[in-house]
């Protein structure tokens, strides 16, 4: 009997200890579980895998900033009494393919329990996963996907920190007017990005009644030989050829236009900042000289304190100079963290509400907001755009002169001699 009572006492003590441990955990004596931020980006072909790698680096830096410089989420900031909570990253590969993006988004939310997702680069992939963001009500920020429909469709959980088609079209049409050019050819891939840019450019020309004749041709993104279309453009003698290829097609257009004597005799404008990447000169060599291209960042642009931190730490961590893809992915991670802190919650619905009503630090300054605005401006914040030109081989983008806008201009368009 005595022995039996002893065993009962031991059992009771064990139950009491287990309960005590459970209570202790629930009141925060143990470290809180980290909050997961999801990155869904192209890391394998046919996506622009270089962009994906750069975005992941930026996201890793963002997590570093949140966990060190910000001291984690919550922890007394904004009057939030939740314990300081670290952030972790979960990465999924979209391959730039819609169905893979959908599968990746689902995994991030259901398996990794991501509170917010960012990192999109290809518009088609982003648009495919956007309805899922609404279904799960998990905020999904477009880091570099720019098709108008991403925000024009007014998804409740979708946001964007990247220039939209009208921003890009307005920039190059402004540049075209400033140069006094009138005949413009546009070779665009058959994706949401390419088609969206053709439509935005046509719409803006019509809306502003500009004296610009646009000859736009849409090509199949998987085509490897664009010589016939380029020969057609060469015969038409345009003032400018806008290259709306992404990844491999962007390079093929430059190479093949050069082969037939179209470029650089006819100026070419790259629709995004692929020339800032290291492989640009490796792939093109002297052929790449004289290209003008849209860029979202140039070292002459003033960075915010947040942007300066990112630039310095990026150089330390990766022994390389930060570019827009790094900085914007970094910025998206920090925006999500700030929204969680402002909401004092890791509940994705509350984070969405915080994103809609808050103002957030950005790498470029000015503060990002995501209002429920009309049309394409819904949940949209755009960083500034510049047009740069490579004027000599192996030039780095920070040495490239800024041609547009006039307020930042550091050089004029240089034609080949």
């Amino acid at each position: 009997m005595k022995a039996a009572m002893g065993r009962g006492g031991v059992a009771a003590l064990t139950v009491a200890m287990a309960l005590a441990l459970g209570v202790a955990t629930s009141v925060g004596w143990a470290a809180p579980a980290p909050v997961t931020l999801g990155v869904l980006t192209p890391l394998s072909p046919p996506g622009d895998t270089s962009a994906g790698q750069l975005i992941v680096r930026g996201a890793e830096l963002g997590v570093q900033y949140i966990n060190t410089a910000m001291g984690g989420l919550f922890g007394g900031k904004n009057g939030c009494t939740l314990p300081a909570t670290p952030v972790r990253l979960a990465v999924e590969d979209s391959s730039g393919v819609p169905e893979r993006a959908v599968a990746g988004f689902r995994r991030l939310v259901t398996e990794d329990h991501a509170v917010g997702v960012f990192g999109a680069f290809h518009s088609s992939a982003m648009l495919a996963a956007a309805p899922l963001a609404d279904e799960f009500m998990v905020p999904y920020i477009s880091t570099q996907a720019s098709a108008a429909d991403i925000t024009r469709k007014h998804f409740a959980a979708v946001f964007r920190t990247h220039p939209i088609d009208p921003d890009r079209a307005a920039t190059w049409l402004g540049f075209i007017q400033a140069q006094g050019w009138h005949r413009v050819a546009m070779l665009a891939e058959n994706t949401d990005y390419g088609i969206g840019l053709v439509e935005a450019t046509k719409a803006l020309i019509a809306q502003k009644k500009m004296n610009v004749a646009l000859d736009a041709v849409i090509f199949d993104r998987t085509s490897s030989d664009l010589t016939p279309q380029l020969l057609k453009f060469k015969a038409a003698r345009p003032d400018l050829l806008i290259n709306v290829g992404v990844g491999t097609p962007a390079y093929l257009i430059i190479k093949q236009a050069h082969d037939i004597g179209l470029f650089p005799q006819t100026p070419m404008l790259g629709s995004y900042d692929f020339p800032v990447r290291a492989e640009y000169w490796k792939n093109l060599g002297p052929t790449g000289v004289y290209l003008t291209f849209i860029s979202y960042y140039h070292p002459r642009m003033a960075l915010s304190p947040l942007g300066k931190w990112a630039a310095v730490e990026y150089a330390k961590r990766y022994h390389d100079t930060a570019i827009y893809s790094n900085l914007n992915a970094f910025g998206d991670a920090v925006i999500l963290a700030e929204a969680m802190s402002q909401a004092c919650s890791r509940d994705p619905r509350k984070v969405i509400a915080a994103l809609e009503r808050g103002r957030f630090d950005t790498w470029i300054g000015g503060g990002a907001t995501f209002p429920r605005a009309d049309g394409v401006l819904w949940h949209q914040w755009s960083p500034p755009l510049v047009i740069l030109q490579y004027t000599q081989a192996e030039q780095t983008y920070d040495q490239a002169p800024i041609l547009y806008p006039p307020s930042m201009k550091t050089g004029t368009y240089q034609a080949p001699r």
Partner: protein
Amino acid sequence: MDPTLLTQYVLAGLVIGGIYCLMAVGITFIYSVMKMINWAMGEFYMIGGYVQYVLITAWLGPQRWALALPLAVLTVAALGMLVQRLLLQPMFAGQLERLDEYATIVTISLTVLFRNLAVVLFGPYQFSPRDYAPPVQLGPLPINGSRVVAFLGAAVLLGLFALVVRRTWLGLALRSVAQNRLGALAAGINLSRIDMLAFGIGVGLAGAAGALLAPVFLVYPESGALSTVKGFEIIVIGGLGSLPGSIVGGFLLGLVESLGSVLISPSFRDVYGFGLLLLLLALRPTGLWGEQAREA
């Protein structure tokens, strides 16, 4: 349409068509001898491009691209023979049922393996060696020097290939196996060795196409995907198993793509080839040079 412009389109189509031929001949050759379709042909094309790029940039230098070319072809051919010996030979040795399905599964698995290996070894980036030659003016068409080299290289390789097949003992053995495997075996030909050589030569041609086109179409893990599709289109257009059909089919496809994309729309460039394929299948189901056959 301006006749000069039309001539340019035709020339551009013929140049690209000539390059397509190499890939198609490799596929046809393997099919003729081994009676199997190698779905990983595009990946051997991709490997040829990578080997050429590495040889030029890391070892030989851009001036010695012509030396790198045979090395790249031999490397791909050796890899092909190894693959045939380790993965495909057992299906013939064991006399498995459903050989076609076995070969399909093995070669499709190889496509996944090789693409992922390329990503692991070189990253997902595009690479391009320097052009092999300065631009050339062909009539009214300025052509990239590397394209001219690729076209001429394709012609030389196809000529050599025809010479081997028509004039050597090996060619005789290959043709006899292509005609009747059992008959060739009865005549004392070592089938497993001929299969291995045929596979090596076939993928070597794809590797040559990849190496020749490395500066033209860039090198990246999925660079072979489209080449495989084109190759299969061509062999069906030309007639399965017909080498002359593959060559004519290659030129036809190049022309149709070039003219279709400027006269109709470049958005459907790859559709024109399939349109031609469907049309030919409707009018002549065996392809241009194919022969009707009956199986007991």
